[in-house]
């Protein structure tokens, strides 16, 4: 009997606290982004998604990752792609290279999206010098057409190269309504962003 009760309690505990689940990110300092590579101080609530598309990525959203999302790519080393490869041999993704310059980063993101997600229409907009936690960086914006739903999606990103590793943080949302509504939250977050690379 006791064994049954213990088993039931264990099952209940597991159900109540799933080992890996979406997690609410409360406003205030968060220093464990992409396993501690980034820290930032969001001003509002976000949700960290359980699903990650690779070891170097973490996704936060408010309403769902198709509606608004911040994607952190933290410390991607030379030779590695931004995202997990479906099939390393048959469908390899473009990788970070040792001689990359800041203007190459938007193209790497575009090539990754075209290869991994089958994005057929994507364009990179304004690209300007910036700083990311004191490091030289590039700030850029872009748009692409979501290949599944054909929704025009806008993106704004900041990226830096440091010690042979790529750091990229991007905000993406549909051009209609969501981008305009939430982009300021991202811009404020970027001002608090620091690297522990």
């Amino acid at each position, binding site marked *: 009997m006791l064994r049954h009760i213990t088993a039931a309690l264990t099952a209940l505990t597991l159900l109540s606290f799933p080992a890996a689940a979406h997690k609410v990110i409360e406003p205030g300092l968060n220093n464990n982004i992409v396993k501690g590579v980034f820290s930032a101080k969001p001003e509002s609530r976000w949700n960290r998604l359980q699903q990650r598309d690779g070891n170097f990525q973490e996704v936060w959203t408010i309403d769902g990752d198709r509606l608004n999302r911040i994607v952190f790519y933290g410390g991607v080393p030379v030779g590695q792609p931004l995202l997990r490869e479906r099939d390393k041999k*048959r469908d390899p993704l473009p990788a970070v290279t040792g*001689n990359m310059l800041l*203007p*190459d980063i938007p193209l790497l993101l575009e090539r990754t999206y*075209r290869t991994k997600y089958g994005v*057929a229409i994507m364009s990179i907009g304004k*690209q300007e010098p910036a700083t990311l936690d004191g490091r030289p960086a590039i700030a850029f914006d872009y748009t692409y057409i979501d*290949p*599944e739903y054909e929704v025009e999606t806008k993106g704004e990103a900041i990226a830096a190269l440091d010690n042979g590793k790529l750091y990229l943080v991007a905000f993406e949302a549909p051009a209609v309504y969501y981008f305009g509504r939430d982009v300021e939250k991202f811009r404020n977050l970027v001002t608090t962003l620091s690297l522990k690379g």
Partner: protein
Amino acid sequence: MKRSVIVTAIALAATIPLAVNAADDEPVLPPYVPAYEPQSVDERGMWMMADEQEKLMALSELRIDDEELNAYVERVLCDTVGKDRCTGVRVHILNIPAFNATMSPNGAMTVWSGLLLRVRSEAQLAAVLGHEFAHFEMRHSLKGFEQRRSASDAWSWLAVLGGIAQVNTGDAQVSLVGSIFQFNRGQETEADLLGLKYLAQSPYPSRAASEVWQQLMEEADATDFGRKLKRRESYRAGFFDTHPTSLSRADYLLDQALAYNDSGDPRDDEHYAAIKKHLPKFLSDQVKLNDFNGTEYILSGIAGTTGWTGELLHARAELFAARGNPRDLITSTTLYLQAMEAGYRPPETLRGLGLSLVKSGKRSEGAKYLEDYLAAAPEAPDAAIIKMYVPK
């Protein structure tokens, strides 16, 4: 939320099936019904769905809205299948860098930009358009729908009967599933052979159909080689394949073209003249797909007809620059310079050349070209970041 037109186009076009006709040596076309209207309830329903999807397609962001390019593809279709037949078809060209064309039961045809990039002549384009038109004329979508429905009905009855009789119907179920997919393969072959008849009666040589499949196999081999994969020794269709393999297609299409023994002008220069305005964009989309060797194969194929033009040299330079090994940067630098010598000098070539030199450690030389880039495109969206590499 609107489903993607690509998915729809594929879904509608994949609605296929039927059996193979014996190939004859005279390209006699089947009787043609002008202004055909859907007959049965099934067919009317399919047309209604296809009409709705076509309305969405007309508004799609993926559509290349260029009257001239559309007129070119429509003209090739009409030259292939005849003016009376082609009037029932609307062509929509989609900006998708993959080899494909689709045909809906209501006469909406999509042609993808990756197809226009890969075919090397009007005749090769005609071969693909003729094949797609054959699906339309033979009402393959409807037959496929009816075939799949009756096969799935039979499947569920077999499961019930098997349950009653305590007989294992597993094998029969597998055979039925197989028959659905084989049916698709049969239909593809049928469309291939009717498409070839159109081609043999057109001003184009029918051997172009076989060339298309040979080139696709060579491109696949090039891609595999670049990815250090084994060559695809087996080109035989598997149980679940809906299309005949490229090898068997190339084979039977060539045999039949030889039997027709027709001749004609493939009009390769005319094809490249027709897509000239879009070629830099098509090339740029292909280069960004991370398929170095496959893209090299496509570029060399085009150069085989047009020679290494400035556009092709620029695209090849971008391909090497994107891979970015130190030796690649030397090659990309050379290719950018060759493109400029060939008279191709858009701002992007100056930018690519400048950045390749900077990455190769030749910062001051690179800065000169980047300065030229900024002078040529002062309002470029990346002007501010490029200025970082130009000393004040």
